[in-house]
Structures are given as C-alpha cells and as structure tokens.
C-alpha cells in the first residue's frame, strides 16, 4: 500500500509546486510596476539608453514562455539570473539560504514549544490568574508588528530567530490551548479523571493522542507562519537571509528571483504539511 501511495503523492506534490511557481510568476508579471527600472529616472541617460533599459526586460513579458524557459534551465541546475542584483540566483541562494533556514528552524521550534507548553496548563487546569496572564502576554505579542518586534530584539542585542519565535508563539498558544481544552473536555477524559487517574497519565494517554492530528497540522502551519514572519523581520533588521532578498526582489519586481523564492517556499510548505499530515493520520489510525 505504501509503495503505491508514495510515488503518487510525490507526483501530486511536484505538480502542485510547479503550479505554484507559475501562479507566482503570473502574480508578479501582472502587478503594476513590472518591467520598470529606477534608472529610467536618471537624467544623465539619453533616450537610446533609456530605451535599451526598457527593452532589457522584454524577455519576461510572456509568462508562459518565460516559465517554460525557466523550467528547462531548472532541469540543468540553472536557476536564472536576478535582474536587480545581476547575479546567478543559485549563488544568491547558496549565500543566504543557510542563514534563514537556521533562524527559521530555531524560531519555529522555540515558538512552537513555548506556545504549546504555555497552553498545556491553561487547558488542563483552569487557573483564572494564569488564564488572564497568558491571555495578556500572547495578546501583547500578537499585537506587535513583526517589524517593531524585530527592531526591539535588535536593539536588545538578540537574534532574528528570537523575533521569529515571538511572532509564532502567540498564535500557537491560542490554537493549541483551544485544541487541548477541547480534547480535555471529552467525556472519557472526564471519566478518567473521575476514576482517579493521575493527571499526567490522563494527559499522556488520553488528551494528547486525541489532540495529536490537529496539533501536527498546527506544527505544519507554524513553519509557514515562521517564513512569513522572517521576511519583514530580516528586511527590517538587515539580516542577510532569503527574507531580505525576497523583500528587495518584491520592491524591484525581480521576476527570476521571485519565481525561485515562490518555488522554495511552496516546497517547504508542502513538505512541512505533508509530514504533519502523515504523522496526524498515523496517530488517528493508532487510536481506532
């Protein structure tokens, strides 16, 4: 069964990724300001130079054609050349991807664990004071813009991963508290409590397995949240990662760079969510 499932699944993933790349390219191509260059405003350049600059983007005007050429290059390992930085995209990724992956990995793990651990007591024991405190704490960080948070962390001397964790944890907290609370209110859990079972045992044997599929889905989403937060944080804090690159590429409508970034984020999102799906289904099957 697994042998048949895996290739089909991978095929679907690849198809989704390719579709994502095409849609991303289309969104960029038809956005206002595409194909426009700041150099056009330089009054030292004469008409021929300005015309030449305008023509230099003409190869990207047909989205399907451009995407086809790009995919052909991709098969040979050529990711294209960034129009705003005039360097091969593969080189830019090699320089910046490790930094971002490290900070996002640290941020998402830290944020998820913190949010989850904070939610456990809130769901299991209904201490009013604790509820109030955690509500205000998570509310505070939820209401801070990522840029403000990032800058504050930089002023305090912290790392970008801490800022990402602080952006992720309030949402993880809210969702996991509700999920765990719901799982803890199931009749058989109440019955287990009534029978005098130790709270830890109830938690580990009944509550967590019940909530597991949703918690895994939440973990998968947290990865997307973390990447989404990484972009403004890296841009504001001058952290030399993929996020900063993406922000600059968006501002200069750099199609080659944006298509690659979209593909990268799609792959990571799909991978994270597929993994969480797999774990979730495994747990569900176990329970039955």
């Amino acid at each position, binding site marked *: 069964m697994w042998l048949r499932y895996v290739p089909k699944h991978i095929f679907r993933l690849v198809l989704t990724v390719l579709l994502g790349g095409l849609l991303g390219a289309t969104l960029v191509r038809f956005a*206002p*300001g*595409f194909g*426009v*260059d*700041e*150099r*056009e*405003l*330089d*009054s*030292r*350049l*004469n*008409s*021929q*130079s*300005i015309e*030449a*600059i305008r023509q230099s983007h003409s190869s990207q005007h047909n989205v399907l054609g451009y995407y086809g050429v790009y995919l052909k290059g991709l098969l040979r390992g050529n990711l294209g050349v960034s129009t*705003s*930085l*005039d*360097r091969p995209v593969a080189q*830019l990724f090699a*320089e*910046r991807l490790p930094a971002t992956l490290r900070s996002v990995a640290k941020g998402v793990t830290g944020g998820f664990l913190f949010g989850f651990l904070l939610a456990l007591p809130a769901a299991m024991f209904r201490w009013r004071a604790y509820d109030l405190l955690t509500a205000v704490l998570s509310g505070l960080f939820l209401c801070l813009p990522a840029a403000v948070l990032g*800058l504050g962390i*930089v*002023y305090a*001397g*912290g*790392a970008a991963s801490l800022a990402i964790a602080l952006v992720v944890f309030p949402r993880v907290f809210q969702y996991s508290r509700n999920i765990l609370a719901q799982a803890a209110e199931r009749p058989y859990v109440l019955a287990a409590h009534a029978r005098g079972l130790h709270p830890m045992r109830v938690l580990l044997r009944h509550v967590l397995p019940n909530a597991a599929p949703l918690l895994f889905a939440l973990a998968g989403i947290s990865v997307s949240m973390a990447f989404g937060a990484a972009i403004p944080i890296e*841009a*504001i*804090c*001058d952290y*030399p*990662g993929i996020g*900063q*690159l993406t922000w*600059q590429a968006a*501002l*200069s*409508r750099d199609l080659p760079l944006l298509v690659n970034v979209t593909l990268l984020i799609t792959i990571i999102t799909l991978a994270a969510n597929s993994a969480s799906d797999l774990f979730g289904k495994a747990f569900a099957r176990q329970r039955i």
Partner: protein
Amino acid sequence: MKSRIFIALVLLASCCFLVSRAAAQSGGELRFSLKSEPKTFDPLLADDDSSETVRYLTSASLIRLNRQTQMVQPELATSWKVSSNGQSIAFELRKGVLFSDGTPFTADDVAFTMRKLMDPNLHSPFADPFRSATGNIKITVKNPASILLQFPAPVADLEQLFDGVPMLSAKSPHSDTAGLGPFIVAEYKAGSYVLLKRNANYWKRDAGGRPLPYLDSVRLDIQQNRDLEILRFRRGETQLINTLEADNYDRLAADMPAAVHDAGPSFDTEQMWFNQVASAPIPDYKKAWFRSQNFRRAVSQAINRADMCRIAFNGHARPAAGLLSPANHFWFNQNLHAEEIDVAGALKRLATDGFHLDKNVLRDRDGHAVEFSIITNAGNKVRERLAVLMQDDLSKIGIHLNVVTLDFPSLIERISHSFNYEACLLGLVNVDLDPSTQMNVWLSSADNHAWNPEQKSPATPWEAEIDRLMRAQASATDNKKRKEYFDQVQQIVADQAPFIYLVNKNALSAISPNVHNAAPVALRPQTYWNIDSLYLTSTNTSASARP
C-alpha cells in the same frame, strides 16, 4: 663614550616620537554604511548610490571636481587644454603613476577607457553626457604622457564631465579591479559588507611627501535601516554617516553634539508637479486646470514652505527658490526668491481663471469641485509629512487633496509609462553642478521632462523658449554666456511653475570625533570626498559583534 650614549638615546627618543606621530596619523579602519547592496563593481556602470561609493573609493579620474571649492583640479592629468570650439581636449598626464597591480598608467589606458566609454552599447550615465551628437570619438595618443580627444560636436563643460570617468587599465588582466584609487576591493560578503584595503601603489602624497591614504582599510557595511545605522554609530561601530535625516540629526545632536555636522543647503530639492500630458487618462477639465499657469502658481502660493522646513525637517531645510539650490554658487540665479505664502493672492489668481470659493469648496468655471490626487513614494517619512502638510494648506483655499503613497515601481510606471496620475511629489538628487547634465529634464523632447515627456514639438511657447535657451547654453563655450542663458531658464521655470519647488534640505552628516581632517560639504560625497586625507586617532577597539 657618554656623549655617544646620549646621542643614541636622543635619536632613539626622537625615532619613537616620530613613529608614534606617524602611527597616530596612519592605520585604522574607517567604517560606514551603504544603504543597499552594490549592484555592480564595474566602475563605468556604477550608477546606484552604493556602487558609486565603491567606485569613488577605488578609482581615480583625469580631472577631479573639488567638492569643497566646487572647482576642477588636476588629478591624473597635470594639465589640459580645451579647444576654443569646445570639441576637443588635450591632456598632459602625470608621470610615474602605477595601477594597484603595479602596471604603469599611460595614455594607452586613457584611450582604452574612452573607447570603452563611448561604446554605443554601454548605456552608462557617465558616457551619455559626452554624446552631444552621433559620431565617433577620435583619440590621438601623441606619447605615453599626452593624449588628444576629439568629439564629433561641442560638449558643454567638457572638463567637469571627466570627474565621473574612472581610468581603467588596458593591459592588466583584471582591468575591472586594477584601480588608481586610494583603496582596492579586498573582500565582498554579499548582503554584509565590502572591505577595501589600502592601495600600496597609490600615487598621491601629502605635503610632507608621505604616501596617501593614511587609513589602512575602509569597511562598508550594508545597512538599510536608518535607525540601526544611528545605533551602530552611537556604539562606535561606525565612524561616519554620510547623509543624516533631520530627525536623527537632532537625536544625535542631543547626546553627541561634536559628531553632527550641518553643511548648509544641499543640492537636493523636493518638488511637486502636475501631469500635463495631453493623452493622460484623466478628465479633460482637470487637464485644463493643470495647464493653467495661474492654477499652478496659486497652488504654489498657498503652500506654507516655512512650516514645511520647520515641521517636516525640524528647521534643517530652506524654502526652495527654484530649480537650483543656492549651494550651487556659480549657477544659481541670485535674483530668484522662494514663493512666500499668500492665501489671498492665491485666491485672486484663481479668480482670474474663473475659480470661485463656494462654502469652503473651490469650484472651477463649470462648477467642478477642485479635487485631485498627489502620488509619492511610500516609505519616505519626510515626504509623507510634506504631502500631509500640503493637504492641510490646500484645504484652506478649498482644494481637496488626496495623498496616495505608492511603492516606487508603481510610481515610476505611472509617471513614465501610463501617465495615469494627476500630481506627483518627489525629490531630486543632484550630483552634478553643471546644468548641461539636466538637458534631459528641460528639453521638451526628452524622457525626463517629467510633466510632459517626449513631446514631438513643444506644447507651449515657454517650453519652446526653454528648448532654445538650453541648446544655446550647451553650444556656448564661455561660461558667463552660458550662465546668462541658464538664468533665463530658471526665471521661466519660476514664472511658469511646471515644477513647484518646495524646499532645499540641508546636508546633514555625522562624523565621529576620532576622524580627523574631515570637512563635510554639501556636494556628494559629503563626508568622504577627501578620504585619502582622513585618519583615525584611536583604533576601533569597541566594535561588538554585529547583531
């Protein structure tokens, strides 16, 4: 025996003293920030801010414009002669100059550079001003130390244009990195920094014969966030901030008054203009408003420039009198003055065109309420403040102004491609003194004639007059005559107000007291124009790890 020991001791002491003096005057790493990643290290194509910084520090030109005196001075060329018709220039080159890789600098390198520059496929902002007409440049190398360049047509202000042409090496295999500047690119970590090391073969020496530059290295950190730049300056991690915003200037001045510098009005202007393109997708009645001189002048009169300087710039700006800033000593028309606020006068002007106030709403002859939008680029706090102040000012004469902030590419598309806008507020950064570099703004047929570009023939008599005057000043050879023509252009622009000039902001910078010989000026690069004479007194030991 004792006297010999005594002499030896004296010699030793004076050696130590000299060495310590020399050590105090050399060594050290100067650090400052670049606002963005340099787009290219090719000196001929470096036209964004960061690339130009690297270019300025790593290359040299035949003639240098002294940023302090605003006069040209010999650099790689010891003397030159411009022909009476302005079409050719003969250079005598400095002897004994070596490139950073040790190869000698000769007239062949100049020829190589000029040929590369005049390649029609180059499209460099340093090359285009030389192309006053089509045709090839004629290069004659008389001997290794003299060269004659002949252009197909007279080029206005020929000598000053050479300030922007970096000399490349014809022979050296790394012709893009063998430079003649005080520093060479040693390391480049993308997204982080560019490290420049001292060029041991730099040809300049100080008055005492010591080889320049004094500094060992220059580190350019790539920092986009202005607030973080200030933080690092305060911590001592950087020693220079080339352009400082008014808010940050005041904050720094409160704690570090010795570090901030105000060099007076800069060459930059903030201005707005109305869309006068005939085919623009805006209603015809609005086009009629924007084409009316009275309407434009009335809007200009209703704007409170003094408040703008005081509130948006905290007083570090001056109302703009016209298209040039008074910092441009020679070319500025001294007879021009900034438009004073005059609400009553503005309403009178509007009345002559049939506008009338109806219950605090200004209406035109046909009863349309005067309402229009102004676009500006998002993310520039000061400019957004200017727009909101203008919105409030114009509401006092019954005009409803909508402020629309757009990201830069969308803005450029609207003002250059689709012309789907009504008014625009932008700033102009002037790096050159000579008006000929602005030909593409003032000629009605040019691309950067912002309010109505690429006209087949001048749409108005005054634009035709400006065309005539600009061409006249471009072909005249006597600077006094050229100034007369350009003064007239400035007067027409002030009368007709196609651009409504708002303010000239001051050239603000910050320099750590550890940096010596710094003399901040208004012309770019404001703080490091004399980088080869700068030195640090205490080495930077307080550098903490970059966040």
